[in-house]
């Protein structure tokens, strides 16, 4: 049963990610991305990380990809692209090489440190794992307790990104006059 679920979810993820790079239509590619996200969410549930799975769906599938689609539709760039044209010369060969290197690296990492991969929830307090809300409590302790500094810094980074976007997109009065 466990194996069956794993194979099905992994297939979903792999087929979805292949779809993201091979579909010529951006909307189809975005939908393939959703398929991948769902596959990964099922894998999370299988590992007992229910909360992570729910957040994965709510944030990534429910908000981020919806925003992708929103932009694609709003800007009208939803026409199928010709995949044979290569905007950057030699881009494909380099991308293939980097991809292969990445696969090699990951495989090597998994093979050489199998114990690190199979130990679940390392660094987390694993007492009271049976409680239904253990997921949330452990994540909260980890994020708001042990790694609170990194968490806060990340939120500042996001704030900077938002403010930066607004500043970049805003037309200042002087520039507006200059262009007239």
């Amino acid at each position, binding site marked *: 049963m466990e194996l069956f679920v794993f194979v099905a979810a992994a297939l979903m993820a792999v087929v979805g990610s292949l779809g993201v790079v091979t579909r010529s239509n951006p909307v189809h590619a975005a939908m393939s991305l959703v398929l991948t996200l769902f596959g990964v969410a099922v894998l999370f549930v299988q590992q007992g990380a229910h909360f992570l799975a729910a957040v994965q769906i709510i944030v990534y599938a429910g908000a981020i990809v*919806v925003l992708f689609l929103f932009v694609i539709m*709003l800007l009208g760039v939803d026409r199928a692209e010709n995949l044979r044209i290569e905007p950057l010369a030699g881009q494909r060969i380099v991308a293939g090489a980097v991809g292969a290197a990445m696969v090699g690296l990951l495989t090597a990492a998994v093979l050489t440190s199998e114990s690190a991969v199979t130990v679940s929830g390392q660094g987390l307090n694993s007492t009271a794992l049976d409680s239904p809300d253990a997921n949330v409590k452990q994540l909260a302790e980890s994020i708001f307790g042990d790694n609170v500094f990194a968490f806060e810094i990340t939120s500042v980074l996001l704030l900077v990104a938002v403010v930066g976007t607004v500043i970049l997109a805003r037309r200042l009065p002087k520039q507006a006059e200059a262009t007239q």
Partner: protein
Amino acid sequence: MGPILAIDPLLDGKLLWTPLLIVLLKVLVVFVVGLVATMLMVWFERKVIAGMQNRVGPNKAGPFGLLQTLADGTKLFLKEDLIPDRADRFVFKLAPYLAFVPAFLAFAIIPLGGDYRNGNGGMVEIFGHQTRVQLADPPVGVLFALAISAIAVYGIMLAGWASGSKYPLLGSVRASAQMVSYEAALGLSIACVLLVAGTMSTSGIVNLQGSIGNWNVVTTGFVPFFIFVIAATAELNRPPFDLVEAEQELVGGFNTEYASIRFALFYLAEFMNTITMSALIVTLFFGGPQPVSIGSTTLDIPLIPNALEGTVWLLLKVLVFLYVYVWFRATLPRFRYDQLMDLGWKLLIPASLGWFMLLAAQRVGEDEGWDRVVVTTVTALVLIGGYALMQLAMKVSRDNRDRDGASF
């Protein structure tokens, strides 16, 4: 069994035939109840609106016109199924299912009955097995509902895009903006409930709401409930927030190009979602299948066993909210698009965030033994300060806009 099947206590341990059959039975019951409830909901809505508008409403098919929906549905099956030339054929066919499936999935986590009295925790006994009257009780139950409502937008969005025509596309762009905006307010008001309840499982939340004083609508201080109802109406694309299918502006909105059974699926999903959302409101704020009780006196429905009584109470409570939704539709005019966005971003999200902070401060104050009055005063002052800052920011931005004539 792995954790994936641990969402139901029935499936713990060795897999036996009886538990498996009970689960299959539950799936079937939930599906059929969903379909029949949707059918009756369409009838109920048409009849109530007709009453409010001084008309008769459906009255030909069956007693009181009860079978009108069935007749309409059967007719839709037999209609010609059109696919526009410029449509994206695959996505066009897929979209109705993307709207229909989430509508039913969300129903799975609603406690549909059961005995929550005397510390029973909603357990009932079927064929010698203890189980809940609910299809699944995952540890992140409420988040599951939120996730489902988050992906429900795909059906509408892709339907509009795949139609390959202007009005549906406008409808779906509106839908995505609206649903993503109100998702935040929805999530924050749910967070208030989770903070008070201390658990995310739906049956756990119901179990804590024994009497009216313990209903989450009271314990969270009413504000999250109102925010939730408004945000839920927007998530459902129901009037007064039905800009997605504003007939006067967009012909039929996202489903303009749909006909036959594909259109019926959208229609079904819309009404199913209304029922699910009402049931979710009852579960989160009004004690779900718990009987109404004030203090220690419980209103008991005679002649019905406790295990069934939960279902009756749930039905009664859900009916109230279904009526409210129909009432909204009959009385409130549609919002303008900028009003919709203003309400969502400038009122609901800040208000729910502020209220969440207030509740969190109260909890911390309780844990640390601080003076309740001081905590409330300080939080209220912070909230007023935040509100003033926000007003200032909006004023500055308005002045800038007036001066520059910027387009956004």
